């Protein structure tokens, strides 16, 4: 009986020394996958929902245009504006911006540039079609309407 008791006493200590290693592994995973946002979004971004989403394999080819109502309406007005990098630009500046984005790519990839249009769902088609016209002028014809997956509520 006494022998049996001794045995149980020996196993009460659960080794927790491996726990930090496991947590650190998780931590490193999240540290590596985290992309810290290097730019502040100045416009409203309620991305519309869609179902037929596709993914671009090469992320370096993507340049982002944000469209929406400015968050700071007292400074920028309430009309939808376009944000490229970290400034608000006019429609006429898009060609220049596209050329700058293209210059940042290697020569072989220049004509494969994708523009990801992150437009707010409340934007009207007027500004969107103006952007599309400018993108055609700039010969950046691969356009992706950024959207999030639709949640089916049946």
């Amino acid at each position, binding site marked *: 009986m006494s022998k049996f008791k001794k045995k149980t006493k020996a196993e009460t200590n659960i080794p927790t020394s491996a726990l930090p290693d496991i947590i650190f592994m998780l931590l490193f995973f999240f540290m590596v996958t985290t992309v810290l946002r290097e730019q502040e979004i100045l416009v409203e971004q309620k991305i519309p929902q*869609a179902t037929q989403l596709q993914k671009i394999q090469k992320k370096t080819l993507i340049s982002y245009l944000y469209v929406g109502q400015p968050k700071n309406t007292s400074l920028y007005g309430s009309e939808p504006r376009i944000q490229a990098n970290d400034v608000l630009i006019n429609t006429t500046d898009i060609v220049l911006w596209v050329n700058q984005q293209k210059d940042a790519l290697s020569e072989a990839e220049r004509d494969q540039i994708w523009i990801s249009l992150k437009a707010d769902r*409340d934007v009207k088609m007027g500004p969107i079609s103006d952007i599309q016209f400018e993108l055609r002028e700039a010969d950046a014809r691969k356009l992706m309407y950024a959207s999030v997956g639709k949640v089916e509520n049946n």
Partner: protein
Amino acid sequence: MAGKRGRMSQEVNAGSMADIAFLLLIFFLVTTTIASDKGIMNILPPKQDPNQPPPEVELNERNIFNILINANDDLLIENEFRNNTDGLADEIKQFILNFGNPDEDAVALYNSLPPSLRGMADQSPESSDHPMSGGAVISIKTNRGTSYEKYLEVLDLVKQAYFEIYGERVGLSGEEYRTLSGQTAAEKELIDRGKEGIPMAISIAEPDKIGS
């Protein structure tokens, strides 16, 4: 005795280490926004040369599936008023696969289709001739006041119709076909086989300026 004490102190208390790591982990969990580079792909038409008028393409009215969206987000589909998009994807599939007046190549294409798609061919003379280039076109025309959300919803349904056709040709569902990455040769072959002969003919017209 002294040796025993030394051995005791050798074990570093690592219990709180987990707590520290947990705190860091929670911080990164909260700050992480897994970047979603997903969206609906669209290839814009090449820019127009101002010296040359846009080429007049002769298309029969029956080959165009007209979708008009006005500033109130009402739809006019094939001259029929709608205020919702229910069943639009199936109508588009029916339209694309109508084979009303197929030429020799289109007959060959028709014979290569799986029976489930062949069954959709109504051969109605009022609908599209064939799905190859020069045949069926889906035209989306918006107004400058149309909401972006509605436009995307309609474009989404048109894409869905095409992806379902492509997927069915290679024995996949529309969703499986859409998520093919094309990075391996086998996937690339599937993608090419799916869309061979049936180009995604979506025409997005310049929006109206009036009536908003």
